């Protein structure tokens, strides 16, 4: 580590990049499983930002937030996977574009 110090800003930038990659992926990719992974990526980008801020403030609060978010993300994945399985079971190899019966 010669002369290059990793500051909070680096972590925040990485968090923002993860969030953007996840958000773009969610909008662009059509495979339901990949879309689920993109949601996780977004949430983990946010987690990284929380930890970076908490570290800068020396505040334990930001760290505990991450634990809450992890639990919520896990609950979301459970429901999301259940939904994906239900959709794929009805029509194997379905993509998000196939879910377009409702419109008007």
């Amino acid at each position, binding site marked *: 580590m010669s002369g290059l110090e990793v500051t909070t800003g680096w972590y*925040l930038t990485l*968090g923002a990049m993860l*969030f953007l990659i*996840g*958000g773009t992926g*969610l909008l662009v990719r059509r495979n*339901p499983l990949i*879309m689920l992974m993109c*949601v996780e990526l*977004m*949430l983990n*980008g*946010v987690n990284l*930002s*929380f930890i*970076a*801020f*908490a*570290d*800068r*403030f*020396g*505040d*334990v*609060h*930001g*760290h505990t*937030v991450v634990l*809450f*978010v992890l639990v*919520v993300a896990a*609950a*979301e994945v459970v*429901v*999301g996977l*259940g*939904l*994906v399985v*239900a*959709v794929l079971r*009805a029509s194997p190899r379905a993509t*998000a574009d196939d*879910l*377009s*019966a*409702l*419109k*008007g």
Partner: protein
Amino acid sequence: MGQVEIAFEAPAVDWWVLTPQIILVGAALGLLLVASLAPRALPDWVSTIVSIATGAAAAIVAAVQWAAWDLAPRPTLNGAFVSDGFSLLLTVLVGAGVVMTALVAHSALDRYDMAPPEFAALLLASAAGAVVMAGANDLIVLFLGLESLSIALYVLIALAGRRASARESAMKYFVLGAFSSAFFLYGIALVYGSTGSTNLSGIGGFLFGSIRETDYLLLAGIALLLVGLGFKVAAVPFHFWAPDVYEGAPSPVTGYLASIAKAAGFAALARVLYVAVAEQSTAWAPILIGLAFATLAVGAVMAICQNDVKRMLAYSSISHAGFVLVGLSAVAGSGEAARWIVRVAGEESLILTTGATGAVSSAVFYLIAYSFMALGSFAVLSVLGSEQQSADASAGGADASPPHALSRYGGLARRRPVLALAFTVLLLAQAGVPLTAGFVAKFEVIRAAIDASGYVLAAVAMVTAVVSAFAYLRVVLAMYAPEDSADGDDSAPAARAGRPRWGGLPLTSVFAISLAVAVTVVVGVLPQTLLEWSRDAVLSIIL
């Protein structure tokens, strides 16, 4: 990485404050436990009775707390959760919503192949989430409430997964819901990064007296919070999911989505904006006004274009969200701050200004009035949907038009005069006809906008009210128009065995619809009490 000092001290818990949530969650878990241990021992009606009793109990407890505490705010859990008039009034609304949804769903569960105990448990769990959102005074608690509400709702729609439309609806709601939650969470992170706190009062205290126009971290955080909650309340341009989800979901669930889920989202929005970042109103009020313009216009115009009544009501619920936004955004333009300091008995305390109080209380009144209209309208749709399904079945599935196509409402007044009359009252109330709750609600938000010198917004709101009235009148005219074709059958479909009926309609749904119509008319004729309650509720918000 720096060292973090950890001195853990368990926060004091005021269990009495948390009673409504404990009742809701306890009943949900109890039902699930019994249903999984003894699946056959539980008749269908037990689940309905439990959800009705639990919803009513939560509402009654909140009403008792409202009366007993004289609207003094009671924070608990280190100020992370608060019981004030605002949260109690919304808790009563959520309880009423649960009761009505359970009543309507009782006769519809068979039709959607939904298991009654699971339905009831998820309904109660989502209601607990809504109640937590109404009283959350910490962004993380708010997020947890939002997720409890949303995750339970994803499953509630997916319970009817035998139908392709329900699967699609649940999947769309899930993807967009998760997307918006991530935005909301990122907003929390940025606000935390800027202010060092996630407690709404803490943030509000930290920011008090400073405009901080160049704190881009804070402004980006506020913007992301607005995006996240904008998705939840289906404000344009974050509304794309709403019509599809509302159309595909079972009608009783749609009613719940359109009323309680939306009210909880707006309650969260009001608390975040007016408690945490009130001084930044110069930044967020223009955004909110822009959202209101877009939401009003798109909701009204798209509602006219629909030929499906359920989809039309989905767009109309978007336009109602626009009216609530008109109320909430009415802080701007008055040139005064949203809060000021008063000295009471030597102690300094923050209160909302008169303008801000009027703005939020008009929004609260609108939410309550609109929730009953939406619950009632979708209850009517649920009843008619089941009737049309049995008609289709007896006709051998010859009619392929969607169950809520406008053409199917033709001649309803002749087949079902009382139901058509009730639906007419609810639709006219949504259109804002005088002597209904909808008129008073629209009047109040427009008055709040004019008080804040938002003349253009008020004018646009009035014009779009007229435009969307056309969409409602189209349905009313279709119902009362003489039927030209001979396809309508006069005989009501044979009553299903085991369900009490009234004139061929399920008795529970009739009760729910009567309740909605009664509230709509009584509040429309005598709005004073509810107006005072909304005002008291907003005045007691802890800052």
